[in-house]
C-alpha cells in the first residue's frame, strides 16, 4: 500500500483543496460537548479530540429520512411518478471517521447489496470518499480488537491517516484509486514517507473476549435464559440501533399530502421497538424485550456472518455509550463466552 506523509500544518490546506470543486466535506465538529459529523465550510471547524463521535457516519449513505419517490395524481386520474433522482446526490468527502466506522461500511453494503441492489444506498456510496483517521486513544467502551478490527485498520477507508511523531503530521495510507485521486489534489502538500511505522502511534485496545467462542455459544443459546437476564433493564428505545454504524433496519412510510400527491419515505427503524415485528393481525412474534434483544445480537453475530460473511458489529462501542441504562455490549458478549 502506498504511503505518504502530510504535515499537520498542510492538512487544512489539503482539505480546502478537497472542497474547491464543490464537494461537500463532512467532518467531526464539537458542539455542547458532543461531537458529530457535520458539513463544514472550513477545516478550522473540525475537532479531533474525541475518542468517538456520538453518531456514526452511516447517514452519508443511509440518511435517517429519505424520499424514495414522489407521486402526483393528475386531474384525469392518471398518476405521474417522480422516481428517485440520484443526480441530486452531492459528491462528498467524509473526513475523520474512525477505523471501526469505516469497517462498518462492509456490513452496510452487504445488507443493501444483498439480493437486490439498493439504489439510493449504492448511488450515495458511489459519490463518497472516506478519509479515516486511526485511533490514538480508546475508552472503556471500545472493543474493535475483539471483533476482528484494529485501531489502525485501513479497511473501508479510501485513505487512512495516522497521527505520527508528536502529533506534527499524518502518515497517509492510500487504499483505493478514489483515495489516490484525492491525495493528488493535494499536490506537493504530501511528502514521501519512509521508515514510519504507524503501529507505534496506535491506541492499545484490549481484547475482551474470543468472538469465535461467543458466536459459537450464542448460536446454541436461542432457548437460554441469558437473553432475559441481560435485557431486564433495557428500556426498549432505539438509541443503540440509531447510533450503530452497521444497523440498517428501516421503515417505509407514506407522506400523503391529501391532494392526491405524496412521497414514499424511508426512515430508520430499530428491532428494539415493540412495534417492529407487530403483525396486522395483532400477533407479535417478538413480543417481549428479551426476544428483541436476542434478535439484535443473533442478527449481528450469527445471521449476518452466515449470510453475508461479515459481522454486524465493529466494536465502536457507541451503543453502550448511548444507552440510558448502560447496556454494555462488550460486557454482555463476554458473558456468552462463559456460558
Amino acid at each position: 500500500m502506498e504511503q505518504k506523509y502530510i504535515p499537520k500544518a498542510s492538512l487544512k490546506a489539503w482539505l480546502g483543496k478537497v472542497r474547491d470543486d464543490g464537494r461537500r466535506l463532512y467532518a467531526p465538529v464539537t458542539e455542547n460537548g458532543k461531537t458529530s459529523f457535520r458539513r463544514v465550510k472550513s477545516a478550522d471547524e473540525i475537532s479531533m479530540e474525541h475518542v468517538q463521535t456520538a453518531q456514526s457516519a452511516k447517514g452519508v449513505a443511509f440518511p435517517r429520512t429519505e424520499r424514495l419517490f414522489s407521486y402526483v395524481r393528475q386531474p384525469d386520474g392518471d398518476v405521474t411518478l417522480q422516481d428517485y433522482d440520484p443526480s441530486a446526490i452531492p459528491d462528498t468527502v467524509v473526513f475523520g471517521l474512525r477505523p471501526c466506522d469505516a469497517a462498518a461500511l462492509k456490513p452496510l453494503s452487504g445488507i443493501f447489496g444483498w439480493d437486490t441492489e439498493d439504489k439510493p444506498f449504492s448511488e450515495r456510496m458511489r459519490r463518497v470518499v472516506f478519509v479515516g483517521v486511526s485511533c490514538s486513544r480508546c475508552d472503556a467502551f471500545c472493543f474493535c480488537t475483539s471483533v476482528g478490527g484494529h485501531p489502525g485498520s485501513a479497511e473501508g477507508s479510501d485513505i487512512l491517516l495516522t497521527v505520527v511523531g508528536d502529533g506534527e503530521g499524518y502518515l497517509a495510507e492510500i487504499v483505493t484509486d478514489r483515495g489516490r485521486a484525492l491525495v493528488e489534489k493535494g499536490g506537493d502538500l504530501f511528502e514521501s514517507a519512509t521508515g514510519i511505522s504507524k503501529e507505534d502511534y496506535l491506541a492499545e485496545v484490549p481484547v475482551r473476549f474470543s468472538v469465535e467462542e461467543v458466536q459459537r455459544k450464542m448460536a446454541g443459546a436461542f432457548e437460554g435464559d441469558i437473553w432475559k437476564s441481560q435485557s431486564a433493564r433495557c428500556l426498549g428505545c432505539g438509541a443503540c440501533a440509531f447510533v450503530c454504524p452497521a444497523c440498517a433496519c428501516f421503515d417505509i412510510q407514506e407522506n400523503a399530502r391529501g391532494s392526491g400527491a405524496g412521497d414514499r419515505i424511508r426512515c430508520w427503524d430499530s428491532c428494539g421497538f415493540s412495534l417492529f415485528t407487530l403483525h396486522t393481525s395483532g400477533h407479535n412474534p417478538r413480543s417481549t424485550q428479551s426476544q428483541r434483544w436476542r434478535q439484535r445480537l443473533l442478527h449481528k453475530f450469527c445471521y449476518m456472518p452466515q449470510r453475508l460473511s461479515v459481522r454486524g458489529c465493529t466494536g465502536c462501542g457507541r451503543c453502550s455509550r448511548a444507552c440510558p441504562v448502560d447496556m454494555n455490549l462488550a460486557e454482555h458478549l463476554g458473558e456468552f463466552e462463559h456460558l
Partner: protein
Amino acid sequence: MNTEFEPKILAFVCNWCTYAGADLTGTSRIKYASNVKIVRFPCTGRIDFMLLLKAFAGGSDGVIVSGCHPNDCHYTSGNFHARRRWIVFRELLDFLGIDVRRIQFSWVSAAEGAKWADVVNKTVDNIRALGPYTEYRRAAEYLAGNEDVLLKEQEVTQ
C-alpha cells in the same frame, strides 16, 4: 392582479355556539373577510391541539379557535376544559418559539353574528400585518421538493 398578501385563516369552531353565530352573520347579511375557512366541531373540548399545528403545516397563516361562552357549553363543561388546554398549549408554543400571535381564541355565541364578523376581520388584519407564516411551513414541508433544507437536515445526522 392583486399581489397583496391574502392571509389564509382556518377557524375551528363548536357546533352549538360559534358555528350558529357564523350562520347568523350570514343570514344577517353582515359582510366580512372571506379569508376564513370554517371547520365545525361538536364542541371546543373536542378540538385537539395537534389540529392547530396541522393547520400551520398545511398552509394556514393564522388560526381561530372559538366556542360557547363560559357556562353556555352544550355539554356543560367542554369549553372550560378547552380553556385549560389552551392556557398550557399557548404558553408551551411560545416557549418553543412558535408564533402564538397567529392563534386567536374567542367566545362567540349563537346570537353574536356581528361579533363573529368582528373576530374574523380583526384576525385577518392582524395576520395581514404579520405576513405569511413561512417558517413553520418550511420546517414542516421540507420533504416536498426542498432539497436544500433536506440536505441541511441530513448534515446533523451524520
